[in-house]
């Protein structure tokens, strides 16, 4: 294990460095190069955080779904660790999405929060994870929780409330037809930065989960 731990640590370090670089470029592009939005003005720059955060949260819940399904099928501890690690990060990125949306909503909608369908479903999604549950129950809940994702995405079409329909991911239009190329570049770089950061954090959190399991097993073996 000691032999394989070093290359993994090195790869994790490279991932962390790449994440930092992408985040720095994304920040510069989003705050300096990209033009202000014609309608929302400078406040729209919050979207360079908001969209990457929610897409990263979606990815995280997809990994919870995969890890949970695999755990129920194969009963392997590593799948349970993956599901738990992805769930913790999913909650983090969902919370960030809600905070960014709330700060953006105040100058744009005039309110910090409203019981809009998409906002409420996203908040519910962040409450569907709890590390203290037993592995099987958490796995079942992780799968059920993943089913909330399409509801969140489609909620703005199904219920006409304060949250506007998507600006980028529209069904009949390519993303570059909807926004200025410089805005799309800022979003893409920012998203890449969030993805790299996500996989760096996931790798760290996964190894932490592995170590906790190892400690538990070795303590039991020692009779303590």
């Amino acid at each position, binding site marked *: 294990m000691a032999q394989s731990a070093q290359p993994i640590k090195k790869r994790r370090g490279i991932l962390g460095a790449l994440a930092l670089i992408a985040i720095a470029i994304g*920040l510069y592009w989003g*705050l300096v190069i990209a033009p202000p939005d014609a309608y929302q*003005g*400078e*406040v729209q*720059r*919050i979207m360079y*955080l908001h969209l990457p*955060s929610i897409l990263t949260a979606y990815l995280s819940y997809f990994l919870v779904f995969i890890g949970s399904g695999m755990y129920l099928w194969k009963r392997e501890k590593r799948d349970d660790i993956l599901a738990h690690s992805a769930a913790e990060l999913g909650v*983090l990125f969902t*919370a*960030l999405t809600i*905070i*960014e949306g709330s*700060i*953006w909503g*105040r*100058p744009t909608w005039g309110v910090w929060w409203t019981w809009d369908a998409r906002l409420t479903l996203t908040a519910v999604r962040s409450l569907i994870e709890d590390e203290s549950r037993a592995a099987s129950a958490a796995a079942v809940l992780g799968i059920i929780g993943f089913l909330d994702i399409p509801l969140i995405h489609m909620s703005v079409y199904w219920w006409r409330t304060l949250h506007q329909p998507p600006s980028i991911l529209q069904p009949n239009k390519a993303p570059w037809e909807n926004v200025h190329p410089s805005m799309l570049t800022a979003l893409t770089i920012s998203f890449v930065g969030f993805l790299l*950061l996500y996989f760096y*954090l996931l790798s*760290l*959190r996964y*190894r*932490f989960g592995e*170590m*906790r399991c*190892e*400690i538990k097993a*070795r*303590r039991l073996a*020692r009779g303590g």
Partner: protein
Amino acid sequence: MGAWGFVGLAYGIVWGIILLYLISLKRRYNSAQAELDALSSMEATDRHVKK
């Protein structure tokens, strides 16, 4: 608060929370690593005593 105030607030809070999470995760990671190292040394002592 002006438009840039809201932008600064959002970016500050988000990167602050991410930094706090990273620090907390690193602390948990290092503490687990230290516990594993302590267990390894205890196991090595046990083996030595048995011999």
